[in-house]
């Protein structure tokens, strides 16, 4: 396992957005069976430290590969897209309008007659947009040259993710957690 290996190579998979999740999980388990610290409970300190490092690296790679958003972002990074510079973000008016609507729908939840039903509708709407966005992203990633469009799609997806998290926070609040 060299540092130059990317996460896909680490799992012996082709660099592809369309991923066999079953195979990914199987490889993950096989790799952890080999490197996990439980396998080195009686080994030397060095081996134990190394095992913690490798297991953490495999966990990290797995987290990135199994989430469509993280996977897409990672693939774009491999293609040289820099996500640190967020200033060049311009969203189309359609997307912004839609965001405002989704956001308003969510913020009205607490004052609704039945907040639970209102929240569940809001979460559904966000979820639908989320799914559509992932499909769009999958399309974009097939073309090596659409890196800028891809970057924008990833950023849109991050917006939707944030909305989803806020909706979940409201859900916990409504449940009194």
């Amino acid at each position: 396992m060299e540092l130059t290996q990317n996460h896909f190579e680490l799992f012996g998979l082709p660099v592809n957005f369309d991923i066999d999740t079953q195979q990914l999980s199987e490889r993950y388990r096989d790799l952890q069976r080999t490197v996990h610290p439980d396998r080195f409970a009686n080994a030397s300190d060095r081996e134990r430290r190394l095992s913690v490092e490798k297991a953490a690296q495999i966990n990290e790679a797995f987290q990135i590969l199994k989430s469509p958003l993280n996977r897409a972002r990672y693939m774009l990074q491999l293609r040289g897209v820099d996500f640190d510079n967020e200033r060049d973000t311009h969203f189309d008016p359609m997307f912004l309008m839609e965001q405002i609507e989704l956001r308003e729908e969510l913020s009205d939840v607490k004052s609704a007659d039945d907040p639970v039903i209102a929240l569940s509708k809001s979460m559904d709407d966000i979820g639908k947009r989320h799914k559509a966005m992932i499909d769009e992203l999958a399309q974009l990633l097939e073309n090596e040259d659409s890196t800028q469009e891809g970057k924008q799609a990833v950023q849109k997806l991050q917006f939707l993710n944030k909305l989803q998290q806020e909706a979940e926070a409201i859900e916990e609040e409504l449940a009194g957690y």
Partner: protein
Amino acid sequence: MALLQISEPGQSTNPHEHRLAAGIDLGTTNSLVATVRSGLTETLPDSEGHHLLPSIVRYSQDREPVTGYDARAESSKDPLNTIISVKRFMGRGLEDIQKREKKLPYEFVETESAVPRIHTAGGDVSAVEVSSEILKILRQRAEDSLGGDLTGVVITVPAYFDDAQRQATKDAAKLAGLNVLRLLNEPTAAAVAYGLDQEAEGVIAVYDLGGGTFDISILRLNKGVFEVMATAGDTALGGDDFDQVVAEWIMRQAGISDDAHQNISHHQLRRLKHEACAAKEALTDSDSVSIKVELDDGSHWQGNLTREQFNELVEPLIQKTLMPCRRALRDAGIEAEEVKDVVMVGGSTRVPRVREKIADFFEREPLTDIDPDTVVAVGAALQADILAGNKPDDDMLLLDVIPLSLGLETMGSLVEKVIPRNTTIPVAKAQDFTTFKDGQTAMSIHVLQGERELVSDCRSLGRFALHGIPPMVAGAARIRITFQVDADGLLSVTAREQTTGVESGIEVKPSYGLTDTEIETMLRDSLEHAEEDVDARNLREQQVEADRVLEALEAALADDGELLNSEERAPIDQAAVELKLKRDSGDHRAIKKALDDLDKAAEIFVSRRMDTNIQKALSGHSVDEFSE
């Protein structure tokens, strides 16, 4: 099946010898020790046949502390010196304890250290020391029963324990002279015991309501891999709270008003809790129970509590467990109906109302046929047996998660999450920081654990002071801080300045934990007590370590020696010979040095071997294809 092998202390071990290992369930109310013997997993009894050890320690002047049933017998008479449910104080500060626990019958003493102490006739003791007394008894029990020193133990902790609580548990084990192979989450331990027994596959939920803590874990079981998908809980919710609401009900019925609580004696409070607990237990099988308590003025109160009334009293508490269940399901990304089995663990799941509510929530009858008191210790013993190396070909693997998010304090007293909750461990995350001032050589970071946004709403784990940053203009330094959570769920922090590669020194000030010096002092004190020499102990530890390392190396070389050419191999063999010589030198420092040298010499071999095994795992899926 080979007969139990008994080894003399100090005798060197051979690779196929059975190593003595045990699993310990260090519970709020009761503790247990279990082991795998001749292929059977069993909990170990004391000389009177009791398997459970009440987690109670009584301190007195001029006498060794008394633990277990004997301590419990005196707890009402001597409440101030008899410490019960000490697990609730582990890794907590005084303010924290007093905020969470109402009406505690102890005298807490604030000390210079972050760890509060309880004043007793036997001196002021910390929760870590009290817990170590319980562990010492269990260690003795295991060693007597197995006829030798324990190689190592697996100790279980609530999945929802934070870093400070885990560290405190590990410290207690160290004080008790135990080698901790792993801290294992209680619901995961239960899942192992259940899963191996039933050969279960698929998604299961473990609902663990103990004496003082509550956990819910969702796991996926797949061909021997136990993968925790999510966990949630409450480390201050359990059977104790059920007793408390019943005790309060009795007080109201007996006309002792809530306002007068302060005036009720500690003895009275203990008696009330005893009666409340007995009533709760009786209501598992009966519809109604009669209660009689002696009051402080010598009079008696007598009354009846029906199961229906009891259900009403505990309803809010059970309700409180459902929210973590919801969160765990969501974090796991599954719906309740996808859960194949619900495993009930912990004594409090005997309460019929708890079972009913859980059946409603998961829309299926929970499994109650396993013993909720022993299943955790049994799971821990199974894991200990594997970690000790007694089952080299076993495929079992536990993949657990961090229960609470780890974060850093940022501007405006806000917390920025670095590692989100339910991330699989071990995990490492790096974060880059820079300096604000020209020539700045030090900086401080504040690490927190919790889900909330404000620093004041999260739990402070510690402050790390970085020093030795090379002086540069403001903003030029790039300090990469790496947070690593190991397989025990414990955090460590390292820092390196990226442009110069200078490793920064880190000074840790734990918010609630003991410092290394404090532990060392406690260790010395307890050894003085036992009239054992610290040097002798160090020597013994280094010898055990030398044996372990030599044996592991021998096995590794036998398997993968072909990865080295003779030139690469020579220094390793030489260092191993040196270590063998030093092992019997009687000088623990010399052994330590030889161990370090061997470790260095084997560096290439170790990493080459790891990489080769990873390649094998990927391409082969079975090791057989690679053996000639």
